[in-house]
């Protein structure tokens, strides 16, 4: 069948490296002997620990209470005993307070959880919203924005007329969303239905990139009968999965600079989030695990794993097998927008979509010396936000921050398309980040050590 392929302007084609894992069934990772549950796995205020050392906890038990509106609770991902608190590094470059739980390997759920709701269709929006918050659900594509906040009535009385489920997964290597669409499509659709009810929104869209035709065809088949849900295919182009670009491709609307999707009456959520919502509403199942793609040339058996939140990268990689060669880089998330981390003692969090482990032979990491700009304008063509990266970067190198501001540097979504296409290997995004720091910092002096403030 031929479908119209939607897309946005700008962007670039990148090699996707998905063939390693996209046809392999997701495996259940062993629950580790100890889990480290960070109290801030989401954007917003960290949760407040509810347990003390020595407490016995059950699986799914709330161990961190949300603090304020933009915050979510955290839950125990294993049953066992709380043995302490520890500060661990997390990918965003900070330290997070973690509750350490020693696993008793009984996997006992807290009573009252995991019981199917008799008549989930009868639940009203208020109850659905409460269950989403209670389950600690955040955006699982990586942004980790608390989901209940997206669905809270907006101050200006805006209402969504589209809920877009993001099944694009345009980052290379990652196939977690692809696998969940193939393995749990009914859960995704059910979750979308609850989200539509929650937002009182008449239309749901599932958007899938053309390199996942199997998932697309499956979804089309399952949603054919439902006139409120549309499944569409998008061109394979980076960064198709970025919120603003996806909204543009699906609805033709343009999110204003500095604005949110709600400004154009759209809510975007990841497909994994939808499945988690369905579990939360129908089973009161808190978010205690997620699918993580483990890949990179340092990994023996590239694979998608269903991993308990709080599992250390180290434990997961160990379960996979001996690493190959000297590991020189570990990336949390995808290679384009993920974070390089310096240790494997980092816990899997709600937003961890992938762990990529590379040794020194990796072609992906090869990067030559930065050369002078040859004014080819490839970066300008590639920028999905319509910026002129080369102009911004030239100003940033002169430390002319006013000029970078005039060039609208704050609109940059840091997708890395410009740096990817630059024939002179200029790390454009680094300079742009520097410029953003200066433009957005209150005193105009750039970033300050996060440990000091």
């Amino acid at each position: 069948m031929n479908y119209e392929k939607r897309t946005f302007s700008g962007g670039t084609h990148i090699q996707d490296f998905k063939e390693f894992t996209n046809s392999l069934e997701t495996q259940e990772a062993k629950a580790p002997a100890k889990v480290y549950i960070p109290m801030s796995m989401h954007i917003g205020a960290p949760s407040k620990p509810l347990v003390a050392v020595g407490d016995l906890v059950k699986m799914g038990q709330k161990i961190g209470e949300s603090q304020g509106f933009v915050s979510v609770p955290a839950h125990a991902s294993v049953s066992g005993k709380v043995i302490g608190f520890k500060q661990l590094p997390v990918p965003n470059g900070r330290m997070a307070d973690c509750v350490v739980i020693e696993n008793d390997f009984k996997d006992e759920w807290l009573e009252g959880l995991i019981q199917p709701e008799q008549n989930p269709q009868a639940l009203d929006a208020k109850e659905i919203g409460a269950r989403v918050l209670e389950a600690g659900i955040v955006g699982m594509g990586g942004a980790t924005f608390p989901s209940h906040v997206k669905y809270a009535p907006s101050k200006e009385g805006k209402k969504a007329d589209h809920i877009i489920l993001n099944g694009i997964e345009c980052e290379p290597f990652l196939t977690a969303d692809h696998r969940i669409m193939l393995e749990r499509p009914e859960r995704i659709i059910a979750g979308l239905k609850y989200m539509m009810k929650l937002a009182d929104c008449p239309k749901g869209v599932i958007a899938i990139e053309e390199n996942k035709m199997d998932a697309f065809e499956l979804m089309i088949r399952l949603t054919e009968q439902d006139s409120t849900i549309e499944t569409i295919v998008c061109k394979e182009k980076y960064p198709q999965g970025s919120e603003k670009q996806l909204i543009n491709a699906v609805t033709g609307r343009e999110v204003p600079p500095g604005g949110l999707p709600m400004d154009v009456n759209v809510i975007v959520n990841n497909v994994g989030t939808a499945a988690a919502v369905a579990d939360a509403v129908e089973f009161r199942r808190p978010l205690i695990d997620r699918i993580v793609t483990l890949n990179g040339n340092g990994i023996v058996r590239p694979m998608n794993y269903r991993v308990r939140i709080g599992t250390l990268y180290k434990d997961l990689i160990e379960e996979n097998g001996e690493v190959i060669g000297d590991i020189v880089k570990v990336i949390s998330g995808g290679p384009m927008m993920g974070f390089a981390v310096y240790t494997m003692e980092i816990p899997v969090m709600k937003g961890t979509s992938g762990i990529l482990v590379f040794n020194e032979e990796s072609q992906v990491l090869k990067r030559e010396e930065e050369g002078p700009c040859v004014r080819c304008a490839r970066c300008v063509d590639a920028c999905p936000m319509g910026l002129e990266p080369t102009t911004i970067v030239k100003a940033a190198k002169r430390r002319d921050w006013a000029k970078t501001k005039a060039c609208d540097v704050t609109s940059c979504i840091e997708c890395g398309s410009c740096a990817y296409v630059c024939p002179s290997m200029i790390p454009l995004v680094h300079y742009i980040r520097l410029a953003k720091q200066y433009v957005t910092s209150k005193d105009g002096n750039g970033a300050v050590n996060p440990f000091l403030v």
Partner: protein
Amino acid sequence: MIQAIVILAVMGGIFGAVLAVASKKLAVETDPRVDEVLSVLPGANCGACGFPGCAGLANAIVNEGAPINACVPGKEKVAKEIAAIMGLNAAPETVRKVAQLHCNGTFDNTKPLYEYKGVMDCHLAVTQFGGPSYCYYGCIGLGSCEQVCPFDAIHIGENRLPVVDTSACVGCGICANQCPQKILQIVPINKQVHVRCNNRDKGKKAMDTCKVSCISCGICVKNCPEGAITLLESKAGSVAVIDYDKCTSCGICVAKCPRKSIHLDPPIDPELTICEQPKEPEGCAACAAKSVCGLH
């Protein structure tokens, strides 16, 4: 031919007349003192005064009542000249100030946390665990200070820490403001005792980080006869800090500090500025005649 010349001549005459009238009618009154003040300012456009360049300050002094000693690098010499132009009394002389670094985390004293690969700027590295050094609070050593110094007075040395050239530093404070670790401080040049650490951890944790870390033991605080040294508490923890108004450079804390985090520096000659140093003239006659700092 003749016709063309006549037409051009007439047009030239008309435009000339229009311009002559316009320049009279539309003339903007400028206070001649603005130009005079501008002529005595160093012309470095360093921005340390907080105004957009020397011209901005000149205008502000004459028209907005900005202080006559606002030019940091110009110091009292320039302030006096401005005072003469403005018909005011010059501010009392003050001691010259220079930048001091509160870290001694050299390659030998601390270790790397990770290898930083990216654009060499402390601001970019600091967002990842406070920089590639094992100490979250110490100097990152990628030289943002060196890049922003308008007087070429601070340079990353061999052991990765910046070294201030006290003969060239004018104490403008630009590096101190921009350092993402906030470990540069502008200090009177006659002060000799400095805490060379910014680590906020206490006890063992600080000890493991670096060989010369302040561990917040407070021995210096107890021993200072002037009460000049305190433990500065912040959300991150605490570190010893000297109040330079009280410090007499007696050096007792230096001897008592079990971690050798406080240093007693040799005195710096405040008169020795880069201009007094013998210097071979460089470039063509016009450039060579100008001094390096633009002040003398």
